[in-house]
């Protein structure tokens, strides 16, 4: 079985700044992968490259066994993935149901399936009572929930979620976690980034940590637990918290 995601020396430059540096990542199919890193480490840039929102400057990658740089194969890959990008991807002037209907049709789902899934997703995300609101009137959390629903509607084999729990209320967050577990349970792969280490620790089977554009750790949660350390310990150890601890605010010390 080919891995869901495989990269070789994947690199992305913005002018002189290297956001992602020779990333070699391998995510097996059917795994729940948590991608961690401090702010500005390159997490979102990496997800953007995986989903075709950003072209790599160097290296190669295969998503679901296909090369995204081949335009024909790229569309095939997109049929099988669902994405919640960093800045979402919503049309301002559509309602939630309209947006989901549109996405469903773009994935060539039958009309009856679209309706049924819309109903379920809107209820699950607690958006069913906001039928008349346009997405531009949504709060950030509501937008995030709609983007999640849009990612789930095609029932994808691979889900890319950039900070899916940020701004989402506790109820929806719980429902979402259960849904993602269900997805993985039926064989799908989930690749998510998050700042909340506890969520990643609870949900993910695998974890990768990126810092300053480089992959500094990759392994399973089992391996981590065997070492007897928590994810937070590991994160701080590989990302480096020594400097932060050493720096004190002089005027608070007195």
């Amino acid at each position, binding site marked *: 079985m080919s891995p869901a995601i495989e990269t070789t020396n994947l690199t992305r430059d913005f002018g002189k700044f290297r956001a992602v540096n020779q990333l070699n990542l391998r995510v097996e199919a059917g795994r729940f992968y948590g991608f961690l890193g401090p702010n500005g480490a390159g997490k979102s840039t990496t997800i953007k490259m995986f989903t075709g929102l950003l072209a790599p400057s160097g290296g190669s990658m295969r998503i679901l066994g296909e090369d995204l740089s081949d335009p024909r194969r790229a569309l095939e890959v997109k049929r099988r993935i669902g994405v919640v990008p960093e*800045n979402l991807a919503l*049309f301002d002037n559509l309602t939630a149901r309209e947006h989901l209907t549109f996405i469903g049709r773009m994935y060539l789902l039958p009309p009856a399936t679209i309706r049924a899934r819309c109903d379920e997703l809107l209820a699950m995300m607690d958006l069913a009572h906001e039928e008349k609101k346009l997405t531009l009137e949504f709060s950030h959390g509501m937008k995030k929930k709609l983007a999640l629903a849009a990612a789930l509607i095609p029932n994808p084999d691979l889900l890319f979620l950039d900070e899916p729990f940020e701004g989402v209320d506790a109820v929806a967050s719980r429902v979402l976690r259960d849904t993602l577990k269900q997805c993985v349970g039926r064989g799908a792969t989930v690749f998510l980034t998050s700042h909340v280490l506890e969520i990643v620790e609870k949900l993910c089977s695998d974890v990768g940590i990126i810092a300053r554009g480089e992959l500094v750790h990759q392994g399973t949660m089992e391996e981590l637990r065997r070492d007897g350390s928590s994810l937070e310990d590991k994160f701080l150890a590989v990302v480096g918290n020594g400097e932060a601890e050493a720096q004190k605010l002089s005027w608070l010390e007195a």
Partner: protein
Amino acid sequence: MNWEQLKTILWLRWRLTRNQWARSGGLGAVIAAVVAVSMFVLGGVSFAGALLGGIFGLGEAKPPVIMGIWFGVTVAFLFLWLIGLLNELQRSESIDLQRLMHLPVALGQMFVMNYLVSHLALSIVLFVPAMMGLGLGLVISRGPAMLWLIPLALGMVFMITAWTYCLRGWLATLMSNPRRRRTVIMGITAAFILLAQAPNLYFNVILRFGRPTPGATSAEARRQRDANKSFNQEKFNQLVAAQKFIPPLWLPVGARALAEGRVLPAWLGTLGCFALGALGLRRAYRSTLRFYHGESGGKAAAQIKTVATPTATIPTPAKAGTRFLELRLPAVPEQAAALALATFRSMLRAPEVKMAWGTSFLVTLILGCSLLFRTAPKLPEAVKPFIATGAVAFSIFMLVQFLANQFGFDREGFRALILSPADRRLILIGKNLACLPVSAGFGVLLLTVITVWLHLSLSVLLAALFQLVALLLLVGLVGNLLSILVPYRIQHGSMKPTKMPGLAMLVMMVCQMIFPVAMIPAFVPPLAGLLWEKAGWPDAVPVNLLLSIALAGVAGLAYWQMLAPLGRLLQRRETKILGVVTVEVE
């Protein structure tokens, strides 16, 4: 606010501007500098021109003439000011007060600073120096009493800018509800268009009934002309009397009074203008504070309902809006149809698009009314096909900004298109189809008007309809190319492109200027028909119609053939387009 804080605020404003320039590249900075220098020069020229005019042209002029000139200046200033207002309906603060409210600075002073910066508008740069020049010129040529014109003119400008500032603040409060915002924008646009077209309607529709009847005897015609003359004089007198009750027109009233040697009206006008202006500014400040303190949304807040969390999934029947998005378009691939319907629905709800389409529709309607109320001119038959083709081209031209920038209105939504698995050819077809109802609708509307007005023959009408089809295809093709190569982001709620690199802006402007070239082929069939007729060949051959059908066929073929390469080009450039249409601007 102390001096250090003021310096910091000025520094902040400068840094924001400088960073914007830096982001728009070297060319952008050059363009900004050229615009700044041009405005300075324009102000100088208008001052000098008005000064010379006042000295040498109006020294001996009668008071009504002086009043007429000031009336013209005032109306022109108001018109240009109104265009500026329409261009930027909501107040865009030079320095956002909301970001400073938690800091220890006096908001009142910040407010005044923002108000002063709002004066950097073309209407002010052009007309205030002109008013000053004209006033000084009249002082030199007619005596020091005319000096009152300077404070009177400044008072009028102050009054207009203060109330405009107040209006913009009120609109900002009103538009904090994004839905209400659309209605406001549409309403104001429609009001502006009707206002701008009022003279056209008045002269071409209402006054038309007072013109001598064609075929009347010379005595009757003279009697009608005399009656009209006295009617017009009466109207003029009424207009002059009405000026006293319209504050912005106190300036021409004051100018006339000063020219007649009466100072009191000008003095009262000045006081009145400054008092009204101060009232407007005070109101603007208070409403601004209320807005930022969140005290203006009482009604909206009261309407928030507590909604129970649904406990079970109950399938609901599709709402009307969703049913529209579920429509299947005959012979159109599923993904193209989905995109066409979603884009069309989205555009119908977008204030900026409604504003632009509403403008086009109203202009067409007013133009049509003006034409229909006139008797059909005795045009040679040979010219009529060109007029029909021109109408078709005109209807398409009004939509250039949509067709040439089809992804700019998607903004964040364009990301959904990139992520979608749809063939990029279908995305282009979907986008073109979304504009079709409006572009074809305008074309057919205009053709109907022209047909009724000029009594077009069936052959010419059919030829024009085929030309419309051909143009839609050709313009769609060129529009697709431009949308892919030079996209630009359109700000939500306006038709203005957001700031972009200077070179991109230049390319975009040049491309849109040469866009009408795509319409030239439509004029080939009527031209060929004319040449055929001039050559004296048989009239029975409808050359215009036949060539129009052929043109539509060729355009269809070209569109189809170019679809695949354009689709590939879109796929290659989609991440670049995304970068452009999703960039947020400060």
